[in-house]
């Protein structure tokens, strides 16, 4: 009963990527909620309190790192594992992400969906 019905919030402003990972993760029987931007993400996190958040960094207006700040600064949300993912291979972002409290960091073009699934499984166990 554990990993079967866990909820994952997928935050990405690009619908192709969002759909790709939604497809893949639903195969693993995760419950996937999508958010298109930072403010939607913040709302949904407070509302649903997902078991894990997959967070894109480069988004217009409220960016991924701000969402991360939000999560880490709220007592009831602090413990939610967050994987930050981005299309940029900028090392600076990685360090930013990890400093702000992300549990892992993933570069979209250098990782396969399978590897993402493995990371998620590790964090949710």
């Amino acid at each position, binding site marked *: 009963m554990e990993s079967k019905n866990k909820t994952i919030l997928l935050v990405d402003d*690009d619908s*192709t*990527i969002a759909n*790709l*990972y939604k*497809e*893949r993760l639903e*195969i693993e029987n995760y419950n996937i909620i999508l958010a298109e931007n930072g403010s939607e993400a913040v709302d949904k996190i407070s509302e649903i309190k997902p078991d894990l958040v997959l967070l894109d960094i*480069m988004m217009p207006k409220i960016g991924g790192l701000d969402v991360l700040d939000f999560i880490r600064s709220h007592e009831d949300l602090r413990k939610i594992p967050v994987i930050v993912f981005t*299309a*940029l*291979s*900028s*090392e*600076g972002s*990685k360090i930013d992400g990890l400093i702000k409290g992300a549990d892992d960091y993933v*570069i*979209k*073009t*250098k990782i*396969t*969906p*399978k590897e993402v699934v493995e990371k998620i499984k590790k964090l949710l166990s």
Partner: protein
Amino acid sequence: MGLIQYLSVFVFSLTIILGLIVLSHSPKNKLNIVFSILSFCFSLWMFCNILIDISIHDHDLIFWGKLSIIGPIIMQPLFIYFFSNFPVRNEKNYKTEKVILFASIITAAIEASLSYTAFNIRGVSMVNGMAEYQVGNLYIIFFSHVLINLIFTIYIILKKIKLLSKEERKLLFFILIGIVISIISGASTALLLIFLNIHGLSVIGPLVSVSIMLLTAYAIIRDKIFNIRLVATEILILIILSILSLGMLFSRNNAEFILIFFIFFLIVVFGYFLIRTTILEVKRKKQIQELADQLKIANQELTKLHELKDDFFQLAAHEINTPMASILGYLSMILDEKIVTIDEKAENYLKQVYSSSKRLANVVTNFLDIIKIEAGKIKLDLEKIHVCGIIKEVVDEYEEKAKEKNNYLIFDKKCSSGNEAIEISVDKNKLKEVFVNIIDNAIKFTRNGFIKITCQKKENKLFITIEDSGDGICEDDLSHIFDKFYQAQDADGHKNNGTGLGLYIAKSIIEMHDGSITAESTIGKGTKFTIMLKKDI
């Protein structure tokens, strides 16, 4: 000669020099020329006064007395012209000003033509050793002219006050003070001279009038170039010439006078050229300063452009990488994980798509890295890992491709036997890029052969070699293969298609790890790359 005479000579020299100095600043500038002429007219007036003082005979006295008004007469229209054009011309009012100028010129011409008549000076008599003139009506006309001119000048100035900047108003203010002082002093002494016949003080007027000259000169010069060295040079020459003029005054005989006058003349000429050279030098310095300022601005623009470029590339990277990730992601799900079932033919086609997409992703990564390398902005994301692990990953990925060209891709691991396992702090992704670039190249240039990779530890260093039995690289190319954009020719003499960046990036990355990369090759036999990485960076 009395004190007043000495002072007169001094003032006389001063005004000549002043005229020359202003002229030397910009010989072609109309304003400077007019000012110099004004100065020389003034000198003429002074000169006449001096000669009046030393003349004894009546006809000399009358001659110099009549001549003395010529200077001031010429000055009147010149003043109008000067203030019409200084510091800037008031285009709106210029027609009116031209009329005023014309009127003044006509009046001056009439006055000048009358100056040799008795209308100017009727007669003279010596009283107590001092000359007493009986003046004619010309003086009344002249003074009216001066007064009217003064009113017009004030009118011209007031009309243009609005057009002037703060700096220019300050300059004008200086000059106006000077005018007022000199008019008051000049007028009062002249009035004293004419109506009260007290003319021993006749030189005080001019003396004080020099203030207008000095202030205006200062204003003009300051407007152009104000420079300590220049002013000091001018003052020095001024002093030398003043001393020389005193010398002329005190000369005991004609020979001495001529000698000193000759030196005076030489100093004037020398001084003129010296000042001109100094001015040119100051102008040069100003030019250089301006160029430096321009350079500074250009640099700032360049920095801004650099930043824009960086922003642009970040955006471009994101926009390219996002759909790329989507393509690679779906293909991975289909081909690696086989989440959906597809027929063999579809699978083969898609495999081609997959490998092309990975190649595309590599090219994009290469480009982005180049940009970062050039900008010096690349940072290594170091983690302690098994280098051989990365090599194995790349070997696995390229196995298919090697087989296509009938090549063997061999990885001879000598580095992880037992406690020889080597973990170094490296940037995993960057290092992978290096191996991808080299192995990809090796496969490209080899057919029906082998590509062998070895990994060995020696002391505190890790040596990785990638050797192929391919076409090899000729000696001329060998020294250039790590250059940016350099592409060696293949066996048929064709230039390879590719970006020419792969090895340049590989070298940059290895060197950033404080390692080294070298290549040996024999044409027709093959190439061997040797990478050295230090255990401790």
